[in-house]
């Protein structure tokens, strides 16, 4: 990072991720993700973007046969160690998935679920956090009169904003989004992008966009991944408008994809 750049939130050092069958998902990745910015990870499928996201909250732990080397620091603390408390890490680093996956509960229960797991019992506190999160996810106006309805009754776009809200209710430090708008119509997509701009004052955001165009629209910083390698990383406007690397340029301008 150059002088005047925002403070670092996550520092990834020489991260490699391999699977048991020998396939390599990430090769020796190092990058610094700045606080309170939107960092976009983009590139063709199979490039390792999702793997990196899932390394940042140790969700890769759930997959059998994954080996990870290298370090990841969150606010200077190494989160890759075996004695890292992954449960509290995941509270600090929330995640929104590509498929809207509301839990089979009411709208209200979906948003307060994480708080209850964390042991928050105070009803008023849960209520406040729920309303705030739903407002931040631009969903409050649409659901405040039917909080007891099953979450599955919402439209796909609403469900995905609900998934964002339930992450925000935990007030994490980092929000990871893995192609959060891939199944949504343009209007819902716009709403999600808007709320990302709203919330980045409070949160550090790392997102895998569902298209180069979306990446270019929202990126403060952008990282281009190709077959497990980090090809180029820098300010979004530079990477998308004047990429330094030939391969980035080819991808951004649509010569392959």
């Amino acid at each position, binding site marked *: 990072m150059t002088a005047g750049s925002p403070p670092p939130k996550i520092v990834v050092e020489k991260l490699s991720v391999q699977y048991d069958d020998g396939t390599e998902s990430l090769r020796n990745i190092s990058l610094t993700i700045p606080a309170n910015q939107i960092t976009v990870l983009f590139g063709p499928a199979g490039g390792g973007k999702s793997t990196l996201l899932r390394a940042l909250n140790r969700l890769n732990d759930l997959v059998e046969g994954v080996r990870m080397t290298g370090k990841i620091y969150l606010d200077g603390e190494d989160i890759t160690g075996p004695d890292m408390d992954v449960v*509290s890490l*995941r509270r600090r680093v929330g*995640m929104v998935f590509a498929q809207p996956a509301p839990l089979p509960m009411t709208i209200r229960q979906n948003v307060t679920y994480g708080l209850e797991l964390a042991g928050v019992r105070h009803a008023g506190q849960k209520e406040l956090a729920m309303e705030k999160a739903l407002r931040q996810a631009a969903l409050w106006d649409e659901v405040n009169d039917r909080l007891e309805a099953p979450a599955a009754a919402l439209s796909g776009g609403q469900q995905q904003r609900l998934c964002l809200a339930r992450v925000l209710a935990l007030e994490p430090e980092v929000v990871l989004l893995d192609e959060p708008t891939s199944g949504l119509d343009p209007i819902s997509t716009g709403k999600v992008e808007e709320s990302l701009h709203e919330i980045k004052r409070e949160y550090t955001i790392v997102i895998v966009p569902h298209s180069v165009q979306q990446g270019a629209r929202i990126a403060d910083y952008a990282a281009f991944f190709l077959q497990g390698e980090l090809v180029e990383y820098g300010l979004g406007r530079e990477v998308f408008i004047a990429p330094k690397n030939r391969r980035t340029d080819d991808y951004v301008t649509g010569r392959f994809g």
Partner: protein
Amino acid sequence: MSRQLTERLVFALLTVAAIATASPIVLVVGYIAVTGAPAVTWEFLSAAPYDGMRAGGIWPAIVGTVYLTLGTGLIAVPLGIAAAIYLSEYAKDNPLTRAIRIAIINLAGIPSVVYGLFGLGLFVLFLRFGTSILAGCLTLSIMTLPVIISTAEEALRSVPQSFRVVSISLGGTKWQTIRRVVLPQALPGILTGVILGLERAAGETAPILFTAAAFFLPRLPDSIFDATMALPYHLFVISTQVPGMPLRIQYGTALVLLIFVLSMNIVATVIRSRARAGRQW
């Protein structure tokens, strides 16, 4: 043969096959109901048998079957559900868990009389429980466990994986995830398996033959170390061991046992269809 004719022929054959499979149940239930119903009076349900079991009622056998079924549930349900949770949620795919799975599948195939003999050897004689409700419940539990474990495991596995990942990603521990999301979703399926398993336990004769059942015990058992009468065994006794037994008492007993087991079946069906209607995935 023209295609239309073939079509009609196939349709007719399949219809006959379907009716043929359904008719025995109608015949069995119908015949037992008609023949046995006159015997089922209040006295029949509430009194002990007398006069060499040729008169009186079957109250001790009803109570015995309820005890045996409940006792079996008390042992087999928590154990079976816990084992199913282990297999579905915690066990990694390795030789040990594969062996456990094969063992459970094979356990389900063992003839019930073999369980009875095993229960006699282990619980009645070796552990000195005697012919008792306890020995009977333990034997029935071993027989019932495979049914409960495999249906419960299947119910747990049918809960979408995404629910688990989401719960973990929101800072849930594995157990929190199981207790708050996976188990509630799997519960109707688990209950169905539990009831079907217990229903089998309630109706079996062979496993309790050497372990719990009393030939004739007109009083109610007063501890788990007492032997007990039970409906299926009582039916076996009065049908084969007592000369001059009035037919209607046999069929009356069969009818009561049938109602006991079928009503459990109906409860299981209702739970299952209600859960399906309310499911969100």
